[in-house]
């Protein structure tokens, strides 16, 4: 017979206010980070502008008026028109749609590939690990931009979907390595052995035990990846290898500045998209840094 042990148990914890899950604690820490909150505010502003673009301007960002080429700012065209007579302001806010979509979906796609390959490599090890990591090494050995350029050059028509796929296929190895590394360090922990000791399946161990404990570095890197993706889109569009005209993207707008006359006389055409890229990337990076501080094991008292 077991005596009611509660009475003699002297180590029952002191009364705690409420039960805080590790995620709630992390969120609390994150919300204390002012820069990260500013980043989120800026990003939300851009997202709202992109979503409500039709309400902010009546102009069609893809249709040009050849009678109105390279006009300076006016009440009709807030940021003037470009070399094809398209409204720059309309292109800027519609461009936010494309740039943010490309950044976000490329990040998601990369995350999907990276987490699956990284999880397989880190969990199973051995031959699976070798195969995946050698493939990753191969991809990393090729310069990213050149590889992306080559694939785009081979493809005849580049749509947003294809563009996202190209970026994701060329940039997954970084994330794979991070996920694999996190899995390898977790694999040695006793709670993973404990999960195996109760007879949990591989799927359950990966999704219930590995991923929640590796979520920190995954989220941080995914966020920073999104910033990189936006820059990559702009860079490729700038040299005319991105999403083709007349689709408005920030990179496409900056490529106008390749013309020395526009560069000199019409800063209103290329400064706003440049600033938009700068602010977005900066905002995302601040969010990423905030998340990194949140998940940092040193600040995470267990």
């Amino acid at each position, binding site marked *: *017979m*077991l*005596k009611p*042990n*509660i009475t*003699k*148990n*002297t*180590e*029952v*914890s002191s009364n*705690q206010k409420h*039960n*805080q*899950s*590790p*995620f709630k604690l992390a969120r609390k820490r994150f919300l204390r980070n002012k820069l990260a909150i500013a980043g989120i505010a800026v990003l939300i502003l851009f997202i709202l502008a992109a979503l409500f673009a039709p309400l902010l301007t009546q102009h069609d960002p893809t249709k040009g008026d050849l009678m109105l080429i390279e006009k300076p700012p006016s009440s009709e065209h807030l940021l003037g028109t470009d070399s094809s007579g398209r409204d720059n302001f309309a292109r800027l806010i519609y461009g936010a749609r494309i740039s943010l979509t490309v950044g976000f979906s490329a990040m998601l796609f990369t995350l999907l590939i990276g987490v699956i390959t990284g999880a397989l490599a880190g969990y199973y090890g051995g031959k699976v690990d070798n195969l995946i990591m050698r493939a990753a090494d191969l991809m990393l050995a090729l310069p990213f931009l050149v590889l992306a350029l080559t694939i785009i050059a081979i493809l005849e028509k580049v749509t947003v979907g294809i563009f996202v796929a190209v970026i994701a296929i060329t940039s997954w190895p970084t994330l794979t390595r991070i996920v694999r590394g996190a899995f390898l360090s977790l694999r040695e*922990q*006793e*709670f993973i*052995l*404990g*999960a*195996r*000791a*109760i*007879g*949990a*399946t591989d799927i*359950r161990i990966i999704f*219930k*035990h590995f991923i*929640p*404990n590796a979520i920190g570095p995954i989220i941080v890197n995914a966020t920073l990846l999104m910033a990189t993706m936006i820059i990559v889109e702009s860079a490729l569009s700038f040299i005319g290898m991105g999403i083709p005209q007349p689709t408005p993207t920030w990179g496409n707008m900056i490529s106008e500045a390749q013309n020395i006359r526009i560069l000199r006389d019409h800063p209103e055409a290329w400064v706003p998209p440049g600033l938009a890229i700068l602010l977005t990337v900066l905002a995302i990076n601040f969010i990423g840094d905030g998340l990194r501080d949140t998940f940092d094991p040193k600040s995470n*008292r*267990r």
Partner: protein
Amino acid sequence: MTKQNKNIADSPILNVRNIKKYFPIKGGVFKRTIGHLKAVDDISLSINKGETLGIVGESGSGKSTLGRVILKLIDATEGSILYKDTNITSMKRNQFRPYRRNMQMVFQDPFGSLNSKMSVAELVEEPLLVQTSLSKKERQEKAIEFIEKVGLRAEDRLKYPHEFSGGQRQRISIARALITNPEFIVCDEPVSALDISIQAQVLNLMKDLQEELGLTYLFIAHDLSVVKHISDRVAVMYLGKIVEIAPTSTLFKEPAHPYTQALLASIPTLNKKKTDEPTVKLKGDIPSPANPPSGCAFRTRCPFAHERCEKETPVLATQGVQHEVACHLLDGQDDVPIATKSDPTLKKISKA
């Protein structure tokens, strides 16, 4: 050799025969196997229903590996494990899964053995979720029953591991191990990471639970006083081998193997009587299990080592009731006197 023909009345719940676990050591450019680390080297033992078998040994003696091999968390290199006469050694993972209900484990590190992202309720219910088809409500009821059984409060189930102390976490681990009503539990140093006052609480809890639920424990520890407190029988391991196995009282009263004697002599006591009785003292470290000494593994540190120890590996031989020892000194084939108190080597060591 092994414990056969003994206590046929108490049927063994677990029978381990000549189990070996060699970890390959890879090296060179092509990662070839260049050697083996003999973590568990030819161990046979049996555990009867309801008893506690303690396993003691220094760090690196292979006790944890033995526990993990028995629960098939690591595959054995050779040998067989019989659970209630069913050979579980070669079972595939999926085949063995239902058996895990009956064979559970409590881990050493209370801070590493609980997933910090899961609440106590999730942690304690997880074995039921994996092993049974109970409904959510039934699982919850059972979890509360066991959380209270290990001395925590039902309200604690909504908390997360970081809100608990080491001893409380170990209670959670125990609840998690017990919830599927297992018969056999491997306790891998369950109290060695706890404060001494908490150790006693957890040990007593485990003892009470054993009585109430009829559990069988394989209790791994390096702390002899802990083992003495909880075990019915004790096996002493050295470099992957069992050197002595005996009922607890016998082992602590009449240790026969020089290594056991040295271990017992190393227990610090508060008021040690100054006696002339020399004690065996250990010098140096345990040799690497990758490159164990020839013959008797203990000979490099044994004050009684002689020629034969170098050439011949001693095997477990009956020494008394349920008492088996693997030492050349005790089989009477040598001129060397049995653990002589007059041995000049011993005197010298004991003075040092």
